[in-house]
């Protein structure tokens, strides 16, 4: 370690200006409009007339340093050593010279990169750590992303949709992805309460904060055992106690599974941002390819494609036709679990005599 350089603290990240391609620096804040040229290529035109072409490729997000070196090599060749990532983890090559666009696209294709994600399509999937890195995961995130996108990749590379469809995956209800406001999203869920490892509680957990962590007040102290106890019928398996107290593992391979939520969005276009709502409460964790999950996602997506108007996001479509119709056209069963019995109960029950048959 003798050769270590002098550490610095509190310097913050490098200033972005060091990394901007020249065309962007010159036209910073002065863009005029853009045009989408294909599923993976768009051009932005500045007031000055200057143009920058963007070529977007998919990334699995969990990438090796060699992957990064590969894309750097390409960026050196076509983009004077500049590139960026998107907020959904795609890679964007920024080209200021029109003549380099086609060669870049060709080389990317040759090398097997997946070009697309621009416009009214499915873009990359915001997701989380899963079994690759998290102690809390009820399912694997990267795996679910892969199997979904393997099925849906044509909506990334070519096929157009009524509007953008944002997918997300979170491996537990902490929802480190954007699951709670996505068009279609998967979330790993439990179906059984945590187990209490009484001998470990006193070392690993603070009893009052463990008790306080439970949203349904299912947990109470168990002074005899110097531990806690759970009122099982109150537990809704959220796992928040496990976040606070490692001695309360909740994972249960037989019963952990995947829920599908739909209809969320974050943009303000047309309708307000929306929360996702529960479409399928539970599907089995069936790795490596989760066929039940993929099938249900496709069912929902296809119903949307069939039914939505141009520019209508999935949630907007459902709200137009009504949720009762959503269950009808998708054929998904409506279950007790769909009915809110928690924070938004009042808002979501049908306080009206109107609904569709």
């Amino acid at each position: 370690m003798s050769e270590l350089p002098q550490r610095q603290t509190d310097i913050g990240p490098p200033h972005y200006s060091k990394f901007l391609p020249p065309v962007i620096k010159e036209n910073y804040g002065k863009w005029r409009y853009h045009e989408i040229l294909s599923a993976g290529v768009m051009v932005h035109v500045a007031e000055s007339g200057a143009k920058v072409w963007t070529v977007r490729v998919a990334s699995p997000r969990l990438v090796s340093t060699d992957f990064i070196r590969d894309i750097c090599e390409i960026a050196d060749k076509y983009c004077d050593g500049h590139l960026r990532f998107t907020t959904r983890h795609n890679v964007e090559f920024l080209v200021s010279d029109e003549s380099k666009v086609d060669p870049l696209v060709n080389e990317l294709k040759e090398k097997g990169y997946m070009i697309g994600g621009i416009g009214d399509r499915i873009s990359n999937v915001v997701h989380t750590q899963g079994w690759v890195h998290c102690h809390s995961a009820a399912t694997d995130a990267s795996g679910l992303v892969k199997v979904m996108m393997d099925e849906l990749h044509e909506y990334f590379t070519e096929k157009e949709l009524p509007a953008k469809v944002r997918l997300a995956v979170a491996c537990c209800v902490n929802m480190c992805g954007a699951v709670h406001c996505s068009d279609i999203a998967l979330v790993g869920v439990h179906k059984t309460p945590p187990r209490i490892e009484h001998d470990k509680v006193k070392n690993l957990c603070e009893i009052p904060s463990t008790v306080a962590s439970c949203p349904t007040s299912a947990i109470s102290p168990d002074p005899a055992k110097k531990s806690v106890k759970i009122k099982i019928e109150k537990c809704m398996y959220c796992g928040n106690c496990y976040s606070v107290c490692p001695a309360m593992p909740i994972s249960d391979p037989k019963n952990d599974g995947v829920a599908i939520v739909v209809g969320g969005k974050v943009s303000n276009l047309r309708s307000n941002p929306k929360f996702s709502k529960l479409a399928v409460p539970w599907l089995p964790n069936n790795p490596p390819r989760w066929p039940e999950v993929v099938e249900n996602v496709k069912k929902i997506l296809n119903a949307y494609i069939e039914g939505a108007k141009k520019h209508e996001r999935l949630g907007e479509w459902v709200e137009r036709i009504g949720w009762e119709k959503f269950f009808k056209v998708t054929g998904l069963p409506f279950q007790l679990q769909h009915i809110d019995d928690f924070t938004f109960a009042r808002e979501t029950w049908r306080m009206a005599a109107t609904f569709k048959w």
Partner: protein
Amino acid sequence: MPQKHPTPLIDELEKGAFPSFVKEIKRAAESSNVQDNNYAQDLLGQLELSYKEKKTHWKHGGIVGVRGYGSGVIGRYSDIPDQFPGVAHFHTIRVNQPGGFFYTTEALREICDIWDKYGSGLTNMHGSTGDIILLGTKTDNLEPVFAELSSRGWDLGGSGSAVRTPSCCVGPARCEWACYDTLELTYQITQRFQDELHRPMFPYKFKFKMAGCAVDCIASIARADMSIIGTWKGNIQIDQDEVRNYAKNGMDIQAEIVDMCPTGCMSWDGNELKINDEDCNRCMHCIAKMTKALRQGEEKGATILLGSKAPIVTGALMSWVIVPFIKLEPPYEELFDLVERIWEFWDEHGKNRERVGELIERMGFPVFLKETGIEPHPAMVKEPRRDPFFFWSEEDVEK
């Protein structure tokens, strides 16, 4: 290094059209650039086991970090280290990304080189808060990685009960709709709150996300305790020739634009597009769909919203309006001042693990406004309260 563990299940995930993360792990497991391939090798093995058993094999937590910082590293240990010693420790390092996720290849290679030397050779580009995630190393390597990174101008991001790494949309760098400089503000916020970012001292995490306009390409309204969303005052500027061009090129302006305007403030007679700007709520739909023809009003600024978070514990929150309009120009003192007043309120009243949005919900939005000195404004609510129960202050009451 050849594969240590057979991985029949996850090998299935090398198949199919979409780029494969399993392939990436295998690359790191085999790469000659990576000094210690055992990380990725044993990750493959443990992941295969998780796929088989349908459960995670990571232990809960474990506090590790670099000297002087309380955040930036997520400690992680395998629960079966004997079987997979390469991932006995598998901590992630969160490196604060540059604004807008722009890089030079030089900078990226530098990071790769450091990581290959001290870590798994695996990364997330990027974490969903925005950091560069260096995925997996052992405790002993944390200080060296940090020394290498920081000496080259990189710093760690946030974790724990701290400011989390602020992030932003591409904004003015490559977007015609940015109403303020999202990259610069992100940089300035990050710099201003370095201490709060590296040394957790809040009740819980606090996230900033900067979106240049209401399109919100950084999902700020759903994923940031403070969401700063660009907007404008003044009329939408219309280029009627370009409108007619859109029509000529096949756009059904009535159906696609006018009928989809949420406020019904537009009309189109086949020749001229009219907007009753007084009724426009600046949703961005028409502008986004007709970017050549329509431009935002001229007085640019932002709306500040507060409070979004994931559903734990009582259901998700989206951020809601607390400042309808603010001009955002350096040195941003008005904004910083507001942030500090909010944190004071949170510090004073917040419970452990209580996000600021949850706190305001518990204490009451009016109480929050009063204590932070923000004037009530109808933009703060979609609708007024329904029940007839509300508080008055001493000064409102006749004695």
